[in-house]
């Protein structure tokens, strides 16, 4: 799943983040932004977010309403960008093979535990490093930086 699919480049020459959300996943499903509901969890397989460093990709997913993305692996720039803009990601080898469209999922970002309520199964994702958890808590890198810079003064 590459960033050209997550948000085609023609929608990125704006800084209006709501606009990104409207075109989220358009390369795959034109109606994705209409179907997705706030709090939905996106589940994917390998190398999610590969390709361009465009930050509108994780922003589009967050603005569309997705609360967390679970995948076997993420591309590294996407991984950084997601946490920097406040979109939590969980890396888990097993869950993406079991979870299907429509399942109800609960995640614990502190422990990395993923629960599929329909299957009644639990999966363990790689724990998020404490530093990245701080980023999510503060609402992204810039807010985190603003807080720490203020502290320094």
């Amino acid at each position, binding site marked *: 799943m590459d960033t050209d699919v997550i948000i085609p480049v023609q929608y990125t020459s704006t800084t209006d983040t709501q606009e990104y959300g409207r075109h989220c996943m358009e390369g795959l499903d034109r109606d994705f932004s209409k179907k997705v509901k706030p709090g939905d969890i996106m589940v994917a397989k390998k190398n999610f977010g590969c390709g361009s460093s465009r930050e509108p990709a994780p922003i589009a997913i967050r603005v569309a309403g997705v609360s967390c993305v679970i995948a076997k692996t993420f591309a590294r720039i996407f991984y950084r*960008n997601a946490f920097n803009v406040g979109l939590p990601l969980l890396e888990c080898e097993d869950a993406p093979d079991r979870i299907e469209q429509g399942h109800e999922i609960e995640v614990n970002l502190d422990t990395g535990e993923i629960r599929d309520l329909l299957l009644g199964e639990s999966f363990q994702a790689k724990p998020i490093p404490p530093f990245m958890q701080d980023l999510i808590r503060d609402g992204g890198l810039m807010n985190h930086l603003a807080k720490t810079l203020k502290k320094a003064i």
Partner: protein
Amino acid sequence: MGMTMAEKILAAHAGATGVTPGELIDAHIDVIMGHDLSIPLAAQEMERIGAERVFDPDKIVLVPDHFTPNKDVKAAESCRQMKRFAQKHGISHYYEVGEMGIAHAFLPEKGLVVPGDLVVGGDSHTCTYGALGAFSTGIGSTDLAAAMLTGKLWFKVPKSRKFVYHGKRQPWVDGKDLILYTIGDIGVDGALYESMEFTGEAIQELPMAGRFTMANMAVEAGAKAGLFEVDRKTEEYLEGRAKRNYTAVRSDHDATYAGIREYDVSRVEPQVAFPHLPSNTRPISQAASMNIAIDQAVIGSCTNGRIEDLRTAAQILRGRRAAPFVRMIIIPATQEVYRQAMQEGLFEIFLDARAVISTPTCGPCVGGHMGVLAKGERAISTTNRNFVGRMGHPESEVYLSNPAVAAASAVLGRIASPAEVVKEL
């Protein structure tokens, strides 16, 4: 315990004597690059938290290269935001249209990156500068804002993976083929979150242009960086260009690698990556036998828009013409490449071959402008990605190749081997 060159560069910039893979470090940045698609969001983020100043206006390089010359009103607004940002913060390295080039060809050409540097850029192909023995990696706009504000960023030290190339290259095989072959071998996540290191006697023989091409596409294997050791060719390239003194670093003999792959390049043909992944590669002998008709050939980009690439294309195109109904678009990567190609008479050859010669721009590579594909159209391109919809309509197709294959394909109107067009080198 020895360190790889990637580890040494990261350690030096974190003020540490050593680092180990997996370790999180805070490192000082030497050069920060931004362009018209990554700066506007970064500028907005800085403004939002009330940041008034960048850490050092002389360490930031801004290049409007993606949708320039402005392709539409939105692109024009982005470029204006970037220009205003440069003016407000007194950025010394701002390069306007007419002076600029595609950033990843332009920064090395201007000597703005030197060996041993730690470079970040708001573009995934920032890994290109690894050809100069720098640790260089792509970041998003928020990281870009943080780096411009503080001069530092956090990094997870990547594992290093070594790729050794033996033997002598076949005719028409260049850096593009070696990297496509490698990505075809290991896959688009074959070096995920790792630092690739390219070495071996075939690399020593490879001109700098080919090394830039290879480092450029390290990200297509999922890598954070792709590094080459500095040798005589690197030093010759840097002579008269490098704006700063540098210290080249080498990997220790007892450094630890996540893995080592060895290739005999004498067995590697020119490669073509089929839609829709750079790893979907086939040798040209096979690709050329499939009679794949093309609508467009693109020769250019940060991957293959250097003067050496244009000379190769000219070798094929001299005295020949693009096939009927085929659009051939040639994009010198920088103004300097443009001037050089003109002075060497390459433009005559291209014009006679019925090619369009564009001002430097990323343009069609990202489906921006200057050669966007319609539904069902097919292009062969010397660019770096062939994802769904990359060059235009989601139902268009991009095949990746080196400049010789792209030029030969333009002439024959189908994916073709250079040897089909030019009988003798």
